[in-house]
């Protein structure tokens, strides 16, 4: 049940909630996307974005532009906004905001470890890391040969340390171990974030529980589909599913034994919120599944702004910006490859 957030929230969180609601108003609209989808070149996209909040970040970029450059600069804007909110936040909002970045940290750790395994230069890998997931000793990851060393040398002093207890082994790192490590870490992170939000209580707990449960369910579906035809056993697959969400535990049991996309569909259609998602797909098709999930996620994230005095708006804003950056990436790639007819395959309108 909700507490009396309305009485006390604005003391510490009022300013930042106003800031984030102002940022939300700056998200691109359907009209902006329509203009962007009609661009003939990346310079046209830059010209259209110059009239938005991304203008200052792109104005100094020389031609010819590349799609990755547009994505990098748009990400820098998100990073600046996040850092401003973090430095203004007090507890427990500052911890909540830090939790949002742990997912990026996990991705960066896996990127560095995988790249090192493939004998890539560390500097080159650091340039590809997400800025929100950077930490001080990240470059030292290249030294580790197995997960035990990874933990002992580097990660013990990072916020990811508690998530390593389930996957510490002395086995040398290889592609399969790294993938299992990635998913195990992310599972532990989601469960920890879920418990933290439950501890906060009130509107934050209710809204974040819904959003994180959806995230856990989507990950379960993606893990299932991506592991079809691979060497990942059913037991290993089941271990990667989170211990919460609408699909926990019976849906997970059924997903663990699925061998094709149609079996996944038959499992998911038993749950009404996901029935609507899978009804948009034809049998045997999984190409549009990502877009269907993103659309559902955007709908839930926008609903988070309908309520006040909770931390869910910060999480929702970060995720909506990520979706916007994904949209811009897709539009840029379609324009660069002269495939504008396919631009609406993956663009998800936010408003």
């Amino acid at each position, binding site marked *: 049940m909700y507490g009396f957030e309305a009485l006390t929230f604005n003391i510490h969180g009022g300013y930042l909630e106003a800031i984030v609601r102002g940022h939300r108003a700056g998200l691109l609209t359907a009209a902006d996307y329509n203009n962007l989808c009609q661009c003939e070149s990346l310079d046209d996209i830059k010209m259209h974005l110059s009239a938005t909040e991304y203008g200052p970040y792109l104005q100094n970029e020389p031609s010819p532009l590349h799609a*990755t450059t547009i*994505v990098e600069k748009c990400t820098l804007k998100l990073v600046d906004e996040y850092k401003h909110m973090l430095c203004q936040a007090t507890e427990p909002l500052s911890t909540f905001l830090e939790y949002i970045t742990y997912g990026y940290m996990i*991705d*960066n750790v896996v*990127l560095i470890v*995988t*790249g090192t395994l*493939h*004998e*890539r230069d560390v500097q*080159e*890998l650091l*340039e*590809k*890391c*997400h800025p929100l997931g950077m930490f001080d000793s990240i470059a030292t990851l290249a030294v580790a040969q197995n997960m035990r060393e990874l933990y002992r040398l580097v990660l013990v002093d990072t916020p990811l340390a508690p998530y390593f207890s389930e996957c510490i082994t002395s086995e040398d790192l290889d*592609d*399969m171990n*790294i*993938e299992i490590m*990635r*998913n195990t870490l992310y599972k532990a992170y989601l469960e920890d974030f879920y418990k933290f939000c439950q501890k906060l209580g009130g509107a934050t707990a209710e809204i974040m529980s819904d959003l994180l449960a959806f995230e856990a369910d989507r990950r379960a579906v*993606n*893990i299932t*589909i*991506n*592991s079809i*035809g*691979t*060497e*990942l056993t059913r037991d290993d697959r089941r271990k990667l599913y989170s211990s919460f969400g609408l699909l926990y535990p019976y849906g997970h049991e059924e997903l663990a034994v699925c061998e094709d996309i149609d079996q996944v569909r038959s499992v998911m259609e038993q749950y009404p919120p996901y029935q609507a998602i899978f009804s948009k797909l034809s049998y045997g098709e*999984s*190409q549009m599944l*990502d877009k269907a999930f993103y659309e559902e996620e955007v709908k839930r994230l926008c609903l988070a702004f309908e309520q006040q005095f909770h931390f869910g708006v910060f999480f929702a804003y970060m995720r909506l910006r990520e979706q916007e950056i*994904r949209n811009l*990436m*897709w539009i840029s*790639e*379609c324009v660069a*490859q002269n*495939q504008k007819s*396919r631009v609406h*395959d*993956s663009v998800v309108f936010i408003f």
Partner: protein
Amino acid sequence: MAVKEEDSHTQCSEAGEYEEEEEEEENDTQNGEQNEKRHHPLDDRHALQFLDSLDDYLIQMDSLSSILRQGWLELASARHSMGASRVNGALLDLKFHNASTSLRVTQDDDDSGVGKAHFTLSKWASSGNGENGSGEGKLREDKSPQLRHRSISPLSETPEKTSSQIGASLIVDEQVQKERLKSLSVFGTLVSPKLRTAQLSFETALGKLVEIANTRSTLLSAFDQVKEEIEGTKD
């Protein structure tokens, strides 16, 4: 009278000679026409081969262009789905490893004895099957002795041979699938189906490139032959 007879006889003989000459000329003309008719099929054959190869070449180039466009878009779609940190060039493996696909160039002689290059692609050849070439090559080797025995063996043995062929093809398919997953593992073990689709597109494009190379070799060989014939006709 005798003179007149002689003159008439001379005239007759001259006329006869003239007629003979005309007949000889007609015969020569007819022989020439027959000779020309005898040469036409060869000229047409090489010219037709050249034009046919050119048509194939253009169609294959167009097909390659569309396959590559599709592949690049599928790769972008995979990057959109999995995230830029999971699908990027910085993850490609720089360690020494055997090539999963190799190209062999041989010199073949066509009907007119002209040598031309022939390209053969061996896809997904694992290190264990190095001597046998690709898994597909291994399947070919398994098939041929069974085909030779087919005419001799009784009917009851045929279903066993068929099931063994199916079993062999399934084994090859599994090996190919494993090799495909192994090459994608640089991006992680659990990759999106979109990335696998992109891989198939680029694999098809590679096969198409080899087909184009063979067609081009045939095209150039046919062109050389047509050119030789034209130069021979001028001489």
